[in-house]
């Protein structure tokens, strides 16, 4: 992996898009440098992570943690909307949506 070619500023721009963060050219280029530095180091993990080593996604293994299907405490609409940047009646107001799905 360490041989992998460096990330370009255009790729970082795509990542910023995926992460929904508007970025200036300047930010993109400084971030591109940082990312390449970091990745050049951390890419080593794939060398030790061999086939036979299982992944640990939870440091303390648990399973089958479930909740009974019983209604609990809820928020009122007023509480739900108290922190909203914009609201109309009992609904949140969001700017027009262009993409779909």
């Amino acid at each position, binding site marked *: 992996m360490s041989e992998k070619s460096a990330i370009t500023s255009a790729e970082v721009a795509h990542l910023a898009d995926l992460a929904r963060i508007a970025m200036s050219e300047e930010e993109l280029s400084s971030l591109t440098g940082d990312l390449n530095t970091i990745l050049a180091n951390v890419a080593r993990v794939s060398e030790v992570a061999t086939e036979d080593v299982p992944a640990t996604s939870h440091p303390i293994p648990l399973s089958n943690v479930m*909740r009974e299907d019983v209604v*609990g405490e809820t928020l009122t*609409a007023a509480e739900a909307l108290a922190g909203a940047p914009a609201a109309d009646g009992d609904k949140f107001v969001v*700017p027009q949506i262009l993409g779909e*799905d």
Partner: protein
Amino acid sequence: MKYEDAVAKYDPVIGIEVHVELGTATKMFDAAPNSFGGGANTNVTPVSLGLPGALPSVNRTAVEYAVKIGLALGCEIAESCRFARKNYFYPDVPKNFQTSQYDEPIAFDGSVDVELDDGEIITVPIERAHMEEDAGKNTHVGGSSGRIHGAEYSLVDYNRAGVPLVEIVTRPITGTGAGAPEVASSYVRTLRDIFRALGVSEARMEQGNVRADINVSLRPSPDAPLGTRTETKNVNSFRSIERAVRFEIVRQAELLDAGETVVQETRHFHEDTGETSPGRVKSDADDYRYFPEPDLVPLVPPRDWIEELRSGLPELPAERRRRLLGEWGFSELEMRDIINAGLLDAIEQTVSAGASPAAARKWWTGEISRLAKQDDREPAELATPVQVAELAELIEAGKLNDKLARKVLAGVIAGEGSPRDVMAGRGLEIVEDTGALQEAVEQAIADNPDVVEKIRGGKMQAIGALMGPIMKATRGQADAGKAREMIIERINA
């Protein structure tokens, strides 16, 4: 291009993703009520709103329902499975990721038998069934069309956010030929019936409890590789499913004929025109960056629990249909009519209350359905199986004839009591008084010498011509069999 030409020239392949909202008491990952009605943004907790610091916790009943669905679809239930985060930004997705399952669905590798109108059975292969959560609801405001484009802003209600869903994904369904639209809608109808039989969802299409995404692609021949597919999202009625598939087949065939290519995209179906229109083109923006949900731990459904659920599964619609067909001796066509009319339960219960299958079918699909239609109601709202069985019993015992029974039924529907009560109350019982009947028979014979002559001459069908006057004279309460006996006796005397 005509549909017939399109399917003559190309082999359609369909694939269907069905989302069903589970009828649990609470949401998938929090204890907010899973219910509609009430004000907007009231069935919410910090979890359903994705507030900072909120964490999910899995609804045990939702898992149970998912396992039941998996078992009913003949799936394997995973030894161990996990939730994953599907990351994408959209205002009705509170966390900007949907908690779903990705490479570890709870159920996989199943199949479901789907019966078409002509009785043909198609086996639809199921790839997987997985658990996930629903999104909130946007209302678009300010646009002229009310559709997303042109809207100036949207109002969001998160009551639906976090409602438990099971998504069932088929493998490509091949070999349907021209039947593709019907296979698609019959498949979704079959699933709907299964959800109801399992009691895991009310499965009301019109309420959006069941939503189908329909993939369609064409290929020049059944042995050619799969063509590029489109995915028509959220088609919400059986008729729409058929129309959407038909439309896509014709549209894609026209493109291919013109030497153009089908674009891999999502499409939207329009009820008004029966057409689909392009949505979003699939691109690398569809990089959902799935990874295992670190706030939830793996599910390892205990094998004994699965076996317990398996043994507790209700009889599924297809099995039940097959069983009743054998027991009742109806024709395939009669059976299909009963199922389509939603009368299977009523008839089965009427039979178990003592009626013959033929009588139960006759009353439910006949007079009761006719009256229900008149009032725009469901047959089951008009009478109970026990009442119908009683009605049949009275006819069997010779106390009512058809005509009287219809009057009794009307009384039952009007709330006058059981058939027996109505019969007594309205004085509708068949006249047993042979004196009155004898008098009516004598009168009829005296008034119709020509008919009597025919009967004497051996034309026994002519007896019918005397029945009218007899019934008239007895206000319909005469026992027709008895009257017939008396006529023959009198004429031959």
